C-alpha cells in the first residue's frame, strides 16, 4: 500500500503493510525515536502522539488509517529553537527522570492545558491517567503544569503547538 503521511508538517511517503502501527513506522522507518515503545497495548501512554491535534496512542493506530491526518510527534511539538510552554515548565521544574514517559506526557498535557488553561490538581491527575511515569515523578509534573497559570512561563496560546 502506498500512502502519504503528514508528519510534523512534512509529507512522508509510506510503502508497506498498512496494518503496521504508527509507532513502528515512526521509530523503525523514520527514526523519530522520541515516540517511545513501552507497553505496546495502549496502557502506558509513552507512545502518545497527536492526530489532528488530539492525543492518541501510536501503538494502536494502523498507519493505513492515517492518510490525510496531521501527525505531531514530540519532534514537532515546538520548533527546533523554542520549547513550548509545557516543555519549558518541565525543564524549569526538572521533572524529567528516566525520560521514557515525558514525550507522551508533553503531547497529552499540551493538548489538555490548551483545552483547560486553569486546571485543578485533581483534574490534572485525571488527565494524566493514560501517561504512566515509572519513576513515579507525578507530583513534580503536576507542580510544573500548575505553574503555567501562575509564573508567566507563557500565555496559554503558546501551549498549543
Amino acid at each position, binding site marked *: 500500500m502506498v500512502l502519504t503521511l503528514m508528519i510534523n508538517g512534512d509529507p512522508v511517503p509510506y510503502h508497506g503493510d498498512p496494518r503496521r502501527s504508527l509507532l513502528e513506522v515512526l521509530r523503525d522507518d523514520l527514526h523519530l525515536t522520541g515516540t517511545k515503545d513501552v507497553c505496546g497495548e*495502549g496502557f502506558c501512554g509513552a507512545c502518545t502522539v497527536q492526530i489532528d491535534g488530539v492525543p*492518541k*496512542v501510536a501503538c494502536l493506530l494502523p498507519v493505513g*488509517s492515517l492518510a490525510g491526518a496531521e501527525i505531531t510527534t514530540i519532534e514537532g511539538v515546538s520548533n527546533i529553537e523554542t520549547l513550548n510552554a509545557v516543555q519549558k515548565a518541565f525543564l524549569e521544574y526538572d521533572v524529567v527522570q528516566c525520560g521514557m514517559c515525558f514525550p507522551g506526557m508533553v503531547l497529552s498535557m499540551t493538548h489538555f492545558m490548551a483545552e483547560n488553561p486553569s486546571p485543578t490538581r485533581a483534574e490534572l491527575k485525571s488527565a494524566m*491517567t*493514560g501517561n504512566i511515569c515509572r519513576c513515579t515523578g507525578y507530583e513534580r509534573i503536576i507542580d510544573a503544569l500548575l505553574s503555567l497559570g501562575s509564573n508567566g512561563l507563557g500565555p496559554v496560546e503558546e501551549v498549543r503547538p
Partner: protein
Amino acid sequence: MMEIPQQSLISVTRVSQALDILTRLGETATVMAGGTWVMREARERTFISLAEIPDLTDITLDDQVLVVGAMATHQDICNAVIGAPDLAALATAAGKSATPAIRRMATLGGNLCARDFHSADLAPALLALNAKVTLETSSGRETLSLEDHLNTPVDRPHILHHVTVPRTSGRSAHVRLMQRQAGDYPLAVVSLSAAIHPDGTLHDLRIAVGSVEKRARRWHALEALCDDQKMTSDSIRAHAAARASQDFVGRDAVDGQGWYRLRVLPALVAQAFTDISLSAQGA
C-alpha cells in the same frame, strides 16, 4: 467486483461494502472500528476499516430515545449524555473506562463486538439501560436486544450499525472496581437502573454485571428479588451476597481471581443503589 488486496487494510465507505468483503474473506478478515482491540489481537487478518462510513459516528438524543452510531467513541458518548440522570451509567462507563487517549479512539461497536475482550464497560451499562442493537446483514437490518446480541451473536456476516436506548424517568449508576484508581481494566462492574420511589421502593429495576465472567450479563435473579420492593443499601447488599456465588462463576485472569470478583459484587451493587438514591434526592 472489487479486488481485495491480501494482508491489507481496506477502508470502506458503505456498510454493504464491508459486508461483501466479510462474506468473501470469512475469518481471514476482521472489522476495524477504533482499532484498540484488533491492533493487539488480530494483526494477521485483513482489516476492514469502518472509519470512512459517514453516519456511523452520529449520536442523537431527545426525550424519548438515545441513538448512538457504532463508530461513536467513548468520549463522544460521554460528552453527549453527561448530565442525563437516566443515562448516568452510560456517562460513567464511557467517561471513566480506560484512559483519555483510549477513550478518544475506542468505539461503541468495538466494545460490544470484541468478544474476546472481557472487561467492556459499555456492555453492562447498556444492558442496564435496556438497549437494543441494530445490525446490518446481507438480508437487511435486524434489531434485537443487546442481551440477545451478547448471548447468541448472529452467526453470519454482520455490522453493528447503531444502538438505541429508551429514555426513562429513572436513574442509573455504573460502579467499577480496579486494582488501582485508574487506567486498569475493571475487576468487576455493576450497572444499575431503576425508578426509585421516595420510600425506597424500586421499579423497573435492571442490574447488569461486567468483567466477572467472559461476557457482561443481566443479573435477573437479583432483579426478581429486589424489583418493586423497598430497598436499602444494606438489604440489596444482603440479597446480592446471598445470590452472587449461585448466579456467577468468577473468571480467573492475571488481573484478579474469580472468587475475588464475586466477593466484591455485593459492595458494588450497594454502591450503585446508593448512587441512584442520592441522585433521586438531588445530591
